[in-house]
């Protein structure tokens, strides 16, 4: 029986349009001996409902947590938004008795009760803290040595600091270290911790495009050949919207945006096709050729 076993929380946007993340995540986790169990009957994490009705967000998130408790398994989320909401609610419900009573009042109506028996992790936590760098390095067959990349971890893994267990929100290193484990170089750039802007794109598209443009400019300025993300929303902002940003500001970036699991997968020896590279919008042929794929 494998040592590490998690309920995979896919969330909504990954199955909706970012399958390359799921495909590559499943490939690399399998290689690392992490067993994934599908989460039955899960619903939206609750994130989009928080601005509308905080209690509804709590109830939806708590229902997901209860589903995991029933299986007695920890949750592993791929999306920063899902991780953030499920982790916050899990911690708050464990610590705040009054809040737990209120939410359990809602859950009683659907025959559930929050007990506080599991923990919530993001993929990067599972990789860096549970699998460990040694084991990851042991699976590398094709070190990505000449490649120079930059990372965008997104806001909802390291912030707010109160809920982030280990990393420094002003200088998050978890993803940088994971990138270095593949043999690729991870470059520092200006305003690395800034938001991608995606959460408000449905309200105002101009501000997010400007934010993402700024970041892409800074990534380009240090000579990074690709940008590495671990959140489907951040990925959409930089990959899906990159051509829109180029048109809006009359600039050219051509910066491929890879999910970390795609980068790791390449280093493990998987082919770009096996890792869903065809699903990416920004052409990554140049770096793949350089790496000998």
């Amino acid at each position, binding site marked *: 029986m494998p040592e590490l076993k998690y309920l995979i929380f896919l969330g909504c946007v990954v199955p909706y349009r970012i399958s390359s993340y799921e495909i590559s995540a499943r490939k690399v986790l399998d290689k690392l001996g992490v067993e994934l169990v599908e989460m039955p009957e899960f*619903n939206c994490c609750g994130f989009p409902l928080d601005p*509308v009705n*905080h209690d*509804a967000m709590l109830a939806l998130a708590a*229902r997901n947590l209860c589903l995991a408790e029933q299986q007695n398994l920890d949750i592993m989320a791929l999306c920063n938004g899902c991780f953030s909401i499920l982790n916050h609610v899990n911690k708050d419900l464990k610590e705040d008795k009054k809040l737990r009573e209120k939410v359990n009042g809602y859950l009683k109506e659907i025959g559930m009760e929050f007990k506080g028996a599991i923990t919530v992790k993001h993929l990067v936590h599972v990789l860096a803290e549970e699998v460990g760098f040694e084991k990851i390095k042991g699976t590398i067959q094709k070190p990505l040595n000449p490649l120079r990349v930059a990372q965008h971890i997104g*806001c909802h893994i390291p912030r707010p600091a109160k809920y982030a267990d280990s990393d420094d929100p002003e200088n998050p290193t978890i993803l940088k270290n994971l990138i270095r484990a593949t043999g690729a170089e991870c470059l520092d750039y200006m305003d690395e911790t*800034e938001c991608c802007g995606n959460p408000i794109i449905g309200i105002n598209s101009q501000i997010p495009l400007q934010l993402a443009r700024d970041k892409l400019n800074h990534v380009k300025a240090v000579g990074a050949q690709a940008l590495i993300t671990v959140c489907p929303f951040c990925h959409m902002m930089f990959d899906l919207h990159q051509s829109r940003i180029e048109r809006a500001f009359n600039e050219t970036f051509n910066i491929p945006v890879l999910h970390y699991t795609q980068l790791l997968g390449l280093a493990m020896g998987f082919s770009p096709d096996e890792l869903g590279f065809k699903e990416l919008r920004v052409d990554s042929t140049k770096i793949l050729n350089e790496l000998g794929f």
Partner: protein
Amino acid sequence: MSEAKETQKKELGEEAVIKVSEMDPRFKYKISKIPGAEKIMLCFQCGTCTADCPVARFSDSYRPRKLLRMTQLGLKNRVLKSDVIWLCASCFTCVDHCPQDVGIASIIRALRNLAVKEENMPIVYRELASTILKTGYAYKIPELRLRKREEQGLPLLPKPNIKSVTKLFDITGVSKLIEKESA
């Protein structure tokens, strides 16, 4: 007056003069009773939130410091009817940097929740909420995608439990909000 200033005024529902009669002195107390917004009165207007806010850098109107002051002053209608409260990207930079630990992001969330009750609910949120109610997910995942999962060797997407989601929407009052908005 510059165009930016004009937009800012419009978005915050600002008139040049604030009338005392516009201020609801109980508003800040009402807000401070909402979980997560308890520390509204601790804001001493240092402006760190606005200075460090990535959205404020590119917006002419979104200023978290100002929204907090308006809330403290009790400018209830101006705050709850404004478009500006919907511009927070919830990146939590202000939460981590605030020297008073005010919890600005959750105060903005509390303001949004109240605004929704006063029928200020952006279409995008109404759509997200109603899609969750209908499908369990925030986006309607097309049949084509579901079929493609098989080709890609991905497991079937678990069937959501719409009955449970509907029940939670009903008891927390979201179902009513969606009905009211679409009526």
